[in-house]
């Protein structure tokens, strides 16, 4: 493949994949929603889950984005240093978003700050957002796509705690976000918690936690224990679908952590709504790709 042709191919695949993720939820999210729906007994909660199910069927049938808020696009990239198209990625992903916006179609969600106008294309200053990890020696490129909607972005909180507040303080911080902002953010939620030193470290990890599969656990046994405690605890609060009460509240709780300065515990919470539009695609150096977030891909 000529270089120009290769870049066009990757742009095209990314545009189609982004549009596709707006229409069909990833396998883990679909399975979990089905599981939670079956546990409900109250008529209101059951009726809401039924409407959600019908909506997802209609989205596929009518080939439309399942939620009107197709978000500001974010890409979490793990790029091998030997991946041949690394230099082209920023422009290529931007073009893919423009294309998906037209084809899907996606809602226009990029507003330039200070000048305060909607660009109408879903690209603007640092939108789409690109978050890079470099994988030394690897020649492939892994990309998580995420539609950061307004509703699920609004509860985002970060704070630096004093060590005296401990993990008990972390617990309180997370629970407070759930009962203040969380209930309006389209539960059942996927809750991402980041722990580190300063706010930006914690915040980035809280979002990366949302890229992890539902049901996966942090490799540290204590962190994994805290994931389970928070999941059971937030479920016991019983936010239910749409915050209108029910048996559960969350799709899961994922914690990502890094070490901390001895004087601080930085903590952040990010949530994904029930319509958690996350995709995962891996390109090899020949630009053949595999998608493991969705089993039924048809584009």
């Amino acid at each position, binding site marked *: 493949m000529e270089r120009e042709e290769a870049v066009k191919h990757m742009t095209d695949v990314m545009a189609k994949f982004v549009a596709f993720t707006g229409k069909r939820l990833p396998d883990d999210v679909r399975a979990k929603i089905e599981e939670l729906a079956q546990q409900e007994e109250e008529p209101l909660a059951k009726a809401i889950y039924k409407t959600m199910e019908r909506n997802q069927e209609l989205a596929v049938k009518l080939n439309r984005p399942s939620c009107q*808020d197709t978000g500001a696009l974010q890409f979490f990239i793990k790029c091998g240093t030997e991946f041949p198209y690394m230099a082209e990625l920023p422009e290529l992903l931007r073009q893919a978003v423009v294309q998906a916006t037209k084809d899907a179609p996606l809602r226009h969600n990029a507003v330039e700050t200070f000048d305060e106008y909607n660009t109408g294309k879903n690209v603007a200053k640092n939108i789409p957002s690109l978050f890079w990890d470099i994988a030394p020696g690897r020649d492939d490129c892994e990309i998580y796509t995420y539609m950061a909607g307004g509703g699920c972005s609004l509860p985002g909180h970060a704070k630096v705690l004093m060590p005296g507040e401990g993990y008990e303080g972390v617990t309180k911080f997370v629970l407070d976000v759930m009962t203040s902002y969380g209930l309006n953010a389209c539960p059942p939620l996927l809750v991402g918690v980041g722990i580190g030193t300063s706010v930006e470290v914690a915040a980035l990890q809280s979002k990366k936690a949302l890229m992890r599969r539902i049901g996966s656990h942090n490799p540290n046994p204590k962190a994994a224990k805290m994931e389970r405690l928070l999941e059971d605890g937030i479920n016991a609060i019983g936010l239910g679908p749409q915050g209108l009460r029910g048996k559960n509240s969350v799709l899961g709780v994922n914690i990502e952590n890094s070490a901390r300065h001895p004087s601080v515990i930085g903590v952040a919470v990010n949530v994904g709504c029930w319509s958690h539009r996350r995709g995962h695609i891996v390109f090899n150096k020949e630009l053949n790709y595999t998608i493991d977030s969705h089993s039924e891909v048809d584009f």
Partner: protein
Amino acid sequence: MAKKVLTTPISAEDLEDIHVGDVIYLTGKLTTCRDVAHRRVIEEGRKLPVDIRDGAILHAGPIIRQRGEGDYEMVTVGPTTSMRMEKFEEAFIKETGVRLIIGKGGMGEGTMRGRRDNKALHCVFPAGCAVVAATCVEKILSANWKDLGMPETLWTCQVKEFGPLIVSIDTHGRNLFEENKVIFNERKEKVFQEIASQVGFIK
């Protein structure tokens, strides 16, 4: 149980027998109206270019496909977080005479007062179910304040049995989300104690 359908124009009497937790539907005219439109009416003192007296608004920013000049198709439309409009809503209800506000999540004290004093409802459409909502839209009748971009334009739609709409604030002074919050906060205290006793990792 018969399906409760409100039809615009809506009178104060139409809302008397409706209580929080009820499920209703809307037929008639529905206009999308959100952040900047509220700000323009209340802070800038501008007149809303659509008459919504005895009518309904939807806190939403849809995806629209333009088929030709002035000819639009509703692709998806679902509610956005209503709490963002709380700051303006009491004055907005008084100013516009709107009877039904549809959105997502709860609203606060001001809106509750506005609804009780001016006889209006707040309802929740299950958020994220934007294709279901779009299929209840028969036609887009007009588009105003298009300078605000696709999400914030006032799209006035002809809708048929738009719903399910879950009543979250009624005209009798009840607020479902605020009542739920009290329950959630009580449970949270208990949950916190349980978790806190098991996460003393700093020793």
